[in-house]
């Protein structure tokens, strides 16, 4: 029973870190219509920056500043946000599919950097000994995982609130207008470029924060964590949950993470032992099929988008 609770806390904590990634993507894609295939790259920036700042000093590698974890989180988010701002400044004027290709390229470039800049990132060996919050309770899994769940849940809740507040305000209304018809939004005097850049950078920062949280939860990062499969998983979560809807992003993250874990468990039991090492490939195939089916049959996802943007409108009753 205790084991099960511990696992549940572990499962939910992991799912919530994905939910945060998903919230970032929802701001970019769901609300603003910016196609980002570099989710893994932005998460990696957040994770590595935070890890470099907070780990103890190690010979032969830059960093090791031993700073507090909270500072690492903030720096990780800021670095990823800055990165998104740069990429956005160059590419947001391009057609949607060129943006997709460029963000794809950014993720590849970040991955290469993580893999090869050994003196900074630890190369293929990654960075270990990343300080974990509540490490004193590591011997008591339930307490440790429970505390992490509370922490991650708290951060997710604050982000959810902040993104709902922003997204369901006149600001969010402009984002939605730009997504639907840029020319018409311009005619109303709304500068599409500035709003897009804000949304893209903020979304990147949220992804960076998620990357940092994950890194400090697991205590170890390596380039293997930030392959395109991560981007793909987050996209599937958002599409399944319902893009354009923050609650959908969270529901999708928990649901798809559940499906992912369950399929991993099932494949492990079902596959003959010589194939088990390859099981994770089959997991990806399963998620890919889920994505395709949702796109074809239910493109709005489980929850879909709310029709009314402004929360003030809901507060004052039916319009």
């Amino acid at each position, binding site marked *: 029973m205790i084991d099960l609770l511990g696992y549940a806390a572990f499962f939910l904590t992991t799912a919530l870190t994905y939910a945060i990634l998903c919230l970032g993507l929802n701001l970019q894609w769901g609300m603003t219509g910016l196609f980002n295939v570099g989710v893994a790259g932005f998460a990696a920036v957040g994770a590595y920056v935070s890890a470099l700042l907070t780990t103890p000093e190690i010979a032969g590698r830059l960093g090791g500043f031993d700073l507090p974890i909270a500072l690492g989180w903030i720096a990780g988010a800021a670095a990823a946000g800055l990165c998104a701002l740069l990429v956005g400044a160059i590419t947001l004027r391009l057609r949607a599919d060129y943006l997709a290709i460029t963000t794809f*390229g950014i993720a590849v470039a970040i991955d290469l950097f993580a893999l090869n800049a050994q003196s900074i990132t630890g190369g293929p060996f990654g960075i270990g000994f990343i300080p974990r919050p509540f490490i004193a309770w590591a011997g008591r899994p339930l307490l440790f995982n429970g505390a992490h769940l509370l922490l991650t849940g708290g951060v997710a809740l604050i982000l959810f609130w902040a993104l709902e507040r922003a997204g369901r305000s006149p600001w969010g209304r402009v984002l939605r207008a730009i997504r639907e018809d840029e020319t018409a939004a311009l005619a109303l005097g709304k500068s599409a470029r500035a709003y897009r850049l804000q949304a893209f950078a903020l979304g990147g920062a949220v992804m960076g924060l998620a990357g940092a949280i994950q890194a400090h939860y697991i205590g170890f990062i390596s380039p293997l964590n930030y392959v395109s499969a991560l981007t793909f998983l987050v996209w599937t979560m958002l599409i399944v949950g319902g893009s354009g809807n923050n609650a959908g992003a969270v529901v999708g993250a928990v649901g798809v993470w559940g499906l992912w874990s369950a399929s991993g468990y099932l494949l492990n039991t079902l596959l003959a032992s010589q194939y088990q090492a390859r099981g994770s*490939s089959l997991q990806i195939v399963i998620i890919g099929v889920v994505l395709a089916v949702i796109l074809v049959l239910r493109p709005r996802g489980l929850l879909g988008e709310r029709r009314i943007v402004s929360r003030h409108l809901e507060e004052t009753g039916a319009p």
Partner: protein
Amino acid sequence: MNLQYLADGLLLGSTIGLGAIGLTITYSILRFANFTHGDMISWGAYFALTVAGLLGGIVAGAAVPLAPFSFGWTVVVATLIAMALTGLLALALDQLLFRRLRRRGSAIAMVIASFGASLALRSLLEFVFTPQPTYFSTELQFAVPIARGLRLTPDQIAVLGLTLVLFVACHLWLTRSQIGRAMRATSENPSLARVVGIDVDRVVRITWLLGGSLACASGVMTGLVVQIRPYMGFDLLLALFAAAILGGIGSVPGAVLGGLIVGLAESLGVWAGAADYREAISFLVLIAILLVRPTGLFGSRAR
């Protein structure tokens, strides 16, 4: 920079160019960034590998290398069969997935779908064949000197030759055949194409078939001179996009030239000591072209 780097760059560039031909044709007609093109390259290589293996088992002696090359008749025949198979795979994917999204008129949903399908296809290969690299032949090949400081293996020369042949064939197909002209017309203006009597749905089907078989050819070539891995096509994808955009979407000569430029740039990077960041170089080329001239070298249309 010595000649050998130049030769390596040309060789790499011609495999990129070969892959980019298929990408640029399909991109211009299907009108979305198709991330599965890279995986069609991998699937094509594995199709060819499997068929060649089967043929070798059936026809005794067919697998004996055709001197001076490292591969035998089986690979040649298998490539032709695999091209057809990959074309059919691409067409099947269209019928199952992309056609339904196209009807809804959402180009960006097609990009998402292709991104997902790409990962699923690649993982399926990984599941069946394991991530371990494999080869058409384990025969050792000795590079022959071509000029001072420049050596190429016969296989590499064959790849250069085949790129040239396929480039000319594609170019002739698009400019001389009726269906090729219909494809160009569709890529330029689909609604006018309908008005002049072109069956656009048929053009789209042929485009998938052609794109798949070209991807397969590119996969076999890459497999011959490098190795066969489930990720081989995906790792090439960024370079392919860079080459196709650099050349101008829809331009076959542009794709080949773009491929050569990207290949040479990567090899220049290797020469300059940035071997580990080779793929990032195609990204830099891509960013540069998007900043300076998003329509590409041969592109005329603002798309």
